[in-house]
């Protein structure tokens, strides 16, 4: 079932035996990736607000400061512009900075160093800017308009940036290691809703998941549901419900928005002839539009129903539970929209 899927256990070459892998949650997986890569590569360092002794607002950098010291685990004042600028400069000198933005919402405060400097430099004069910008991203926890945003579309529209949004503990580690090793600037959004929601198997050893490959989380022949981030779980739940009704949905986790795995999604839609794109970001100009436009243009003759999007509506992210529930796509809403498409 798809590429890159971890086996249920792994062969431990050192011990010469087969063993169950440790179960980690998303946050632990990120944390482990940082620990391991910093051990492996002296040039990797993390920086951001409260990432040091405190271990970060979500504890993603816990333990690093004790182990690697403040040179490699750099607490910064509140100055997104300057610390991302610093990361750019250090990256061009051969270091590998991993920046934490405390909440993805605050990425707009350090916008220029990302969208103007990091994105364009290699094209303009050839210097590599291998920075990673990690940020807890998305809603679902009543955190209101400024601690819930999904603004990946700002960055997918900036040639020169890669945009990665893993949805499982396994991918979180594998993609973070790929991102750190990538010679390009990578925006790495972590659906914070998933940080502590369930554990799954994560190999102890460092491993990579390639940037640019989507993953079929559940195969199906009747409808392709294309999504990313926290919506993958919702889509899987919806697929389960729909399966009981006799419709087999293929759930695709994009994992990487740029570069996009065009082939995998085109193949899927050509097989299923129906597609529903789901995302947590607001509708207008969300990355779902790009996916829909691409499929409409390149799989036009295969489509038996309009390429549909299910997204948040065009409003700021509201706080109060009844509003946030209405705002956010979920399994139930996916089922309703999918039924319409299946019946088209």
């Amino acid at each position: 079932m798809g590429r890159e899927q971890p086996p249920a256990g792994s062969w431990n070459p050192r011990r010469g035996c087969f063993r169950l892998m440790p179960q980690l949650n998303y946050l632990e997986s990120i944390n482990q990736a940082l620990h391991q890569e910093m051990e492996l590569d002296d040039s990797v360092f993390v920086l951001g607000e409260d990432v040091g002794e405190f271990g970060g607002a979500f504890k993603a950098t816990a333990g690093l400061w004790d182990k690697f010291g403040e040179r490699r685990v750099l607490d910064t004042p509140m100055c997104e512009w300057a610390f991302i600028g610093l990361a750019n400069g250090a990256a061009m000198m051969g270091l590998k900075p991993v920046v934490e933005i405390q909440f993805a919402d605050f990425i707009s405060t350090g916008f220029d160093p990302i969208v103007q400097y990091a994105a364009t430099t290699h094209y303009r004069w050839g210097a590599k800017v291998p920075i990673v910008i990690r940020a807890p991203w998305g809603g679902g926890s009543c955190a209101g308009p400024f601690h819930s945003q999904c603004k990946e579309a700002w960055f997918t529209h900036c040639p020169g940036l890669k945009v990665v949004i893993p949805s499982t503990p396994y991918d979180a580690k594998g993609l973070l290691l790929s991102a750190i090793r990538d010679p390009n600037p990578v925006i790495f959004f972590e659906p914070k809703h998933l940080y502590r929601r369930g554990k799954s198997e994560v190999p102890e050893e460092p491993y990579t998941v390639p940037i640019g490959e989507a993953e079929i989380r559940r195969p199906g022949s009747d409808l392709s549901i294309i999504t990313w981030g926290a919506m993958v779980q919702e889509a899987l739940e919806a697929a389960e419900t729909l399966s009981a009704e006799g419709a087999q949905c293929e759930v695709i986790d994009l994992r990487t928005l740029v570069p996009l795995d065009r082939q995998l999604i085109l193949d899927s839609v050509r097989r299923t002839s129906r597609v529903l794109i789901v995302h947590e970001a607001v509708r207008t100009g969300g990355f779902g539009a790009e996916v829909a436009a691409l499929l409409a243009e390149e799989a036009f003759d295969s489509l038996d129903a309009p390429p549909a999007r299910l997204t948040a509506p065009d409003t700021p992210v509201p706080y109060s539970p009844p509003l946030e529930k209405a705002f956010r796509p979920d399994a139930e809403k996916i089922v309703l929209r999918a039924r319409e498409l299946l019946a088209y």
Partner: protein
Amino acid sequence: MHEQSSERLLDLLYWMMLTRGVDDRCEALFKQGKFPGGIFAQTGHEAISVGSSILLEEGDAIAPMHRDLGAYLVRGMSPGRIFAQAMGRVGAPSGGRDLNTHGLGDISLRIFGYVSHLPQSMGIALGAAYSFLYRGEDRVAMTYFGDGASSEGGCHEALNLAAVLNAPVIFILENNRYAYSTPLEKQCRIENLAIRAEGYGIPGVTIDGTDIIAVMDTTKEAVERARGGGGPSLIECKNLRMKGHAIHDPADYVPAELLEHWEERDPVEQFRRQLEAAGTLDEESLQSIKARIEREIEEAVEWAESSPLPDPGTLEEDVFA
């Protein structure tokens, strides 16, 4: 202190105690699970937020931040609406769309709700001040920011632009020695941030932010200067954030000695003791203030809880005016 009437002094005590009371009640309500989202503790900031905002007049504008509960109250935001905001109710200024002190604005009171992205409010207050210049009005704008926000570029831009325009705006820097977990020493290489005022060509002073009379005296001077066409001022009030950054944060990174040092300087207790020593406050008036506050808070919580949760059908309303 000598210059204030005893009525005024008791009024100040009332506002500080009300701030403390609303804050404590918020903590209790949060622990009872009545707030879907988090809140920011106010302890240690009461003298600053009350002592400065109390000097504003009708028509003046204010753009407070997340530790200025006192300023919201003083400027007319009722406790009921504040509780309703945290509960996500229709009766809140944001009608359930924004949380805690975020978006706690009311244009009829000339209170500007803030956004998280610090220190946006500095630009906003500057704009209000510019509108006063523009219309030739005798008004001032007041705004607040923390030691943390002082490292953001916007802080510099706003201070410099205010200076260039000679705008009637008072910038109050609440230097509580922490930005979340990050101590002052990791944020800057100086001890008193107000010395930066010189680099903008405006007056800047550093005062004890736990002493409400000091806050009032200094702010009064700045407000008068601004009203008289003397332009902006920077006032740095030093204190300590006495609890965690927000309710989830135990703040065990704050050294015990530091907390002890500042605990003795609790702004509310300090002022109460001062008033008692001066004979301005007796047990009877203290009890009557307490009773009044208790009643007001009780009614406010009741009012907030009786306000409904928003109808999901209104989700897409009001994006545009």
